[in-house]
């Protein structure tokens, strides 16, 4: 990994934990990050529609799924924001969902920047 971009004290990933889960295979980690980034774009659109339609079970499901993949990659802040989205769906709270979406967008930018040279 190169030197950290942007804010050196807030790293979007717990690298040690992530590498641990990929069996210390860096290349494989980057493969997963690419899948994650790709997948997020789809999920973002789905979340926007779900919020528009006030489809809370969808919001919960997507939040849950995103939480899972974030956790697998030890993307700490994405995981936290996804959990908020999942809870918003569970509690049928539209405002919380909208706020969670904003947070996801912000944290996602951090992830993209951090892995910029590894993205396909």
């Amino acid at each position, binding site marked *: 990994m190169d030197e950290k971009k942007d804010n050196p004290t807030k790293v979007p990933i717990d690298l040690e934990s992530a590498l641990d889960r990929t*069996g210390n295979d860096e290349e494989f980690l980057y493969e*997963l990050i690419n899948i994650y980034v790709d997948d997020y774009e789809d999920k973002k659109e789905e979340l926007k529609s779900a919020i528009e339609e006030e489809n809370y079970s969808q919001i919960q499901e997507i939040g849950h*799924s995103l939480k899972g993949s974030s956790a697998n990659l030890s993307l700490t802040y994405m995981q936290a924001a996804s959990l908020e989205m999942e809870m918003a769906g569970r509690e049928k709270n539209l405002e919380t969902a909208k706020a969670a979406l904003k947070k996801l967008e912000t944290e996602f930018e951090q992830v993209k920047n951090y892995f910029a040279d590894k993205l396909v």
Partner: protein
Amino acid sequence: MNPEHKNKIHLMIAEDDRVSCRLLEKHTKAWGFEVTIAQDGASAWKVFQESENIQIAILDWMMPKLSGIELCQKIREKNQEPYVYLIILTSKNCPEDIISGLSAGADDYIIKPFNPPELRARLKTGERIIELEHELRKARQKFQELAMHDGLTNLLNRVAIMEELTGEIARAYRTDSSLCTLMLDIDHFKQINDTYGHQVGDEVLIEIAARLKTELRIYDRIGRYGGEEFFIVLSNCTWEFGHNVANRLLKRISGTPVQTQAGPIQVAASIGFTSTDKLKQITPEIMLSVSDKALYLAKNKGRNCFVAL
């Protein structure tokens, strides 16, 4: 067990999240499993139905179309063999998911994000259970076979041959074909036992059973009906053809002596047979009884012959 030296166990992953799915796939393949992936509950169920050898499944508890829990229930309801070991992926801080998962039929659970060595250990437990079930099924099959066969001659036993007869009669009706039954009894068998002892008697029975078997067609059925009695069911066999078979069997038995530990023994048999061609009423009991009656007549005629009724 070393995965390279046995067949790969087929494992299914049902997980809608692409990252988790890929992670699971990579690890399980590295551990030697044959892996199939489904990305939602409905396709997981489809895969499971179409494949007969999935032995382990890792199911995410929340998936589109069909949840992990519902999938567990469906799989357990289907209750097909062999047993499928189910591991459910649950979230942290959700004991109610664990409880519902296990109650729905999951064997184990693992909390997301999973720790690979822990998953590996849990999968090993699953392999142990699968191996146990495999042994159990093998033993059950062995016992079923034992229950249907005569221990000495390896022919069907009385219960089994009568069951075969019932089935063959039904088939004969369905296909509008003829059926013959033969009751064959070794002549003077009691004398053989008394003269040479039961061990030699057993040798004779084994040899005769083997000779009869080689004379019959692959779809004929033969059973050991009594001590020295054999009951034979010939499907697709007319009255006339039955005569041929009876003749052939008699020749085969008396043609060459049976080699035993007491030396060569000349053996002969009597046969009574009947055919559906000649019977007005056809039931297993009737065919048995008429064959038996014919056998009695053959004995009275001087043995080493057959009578057809």
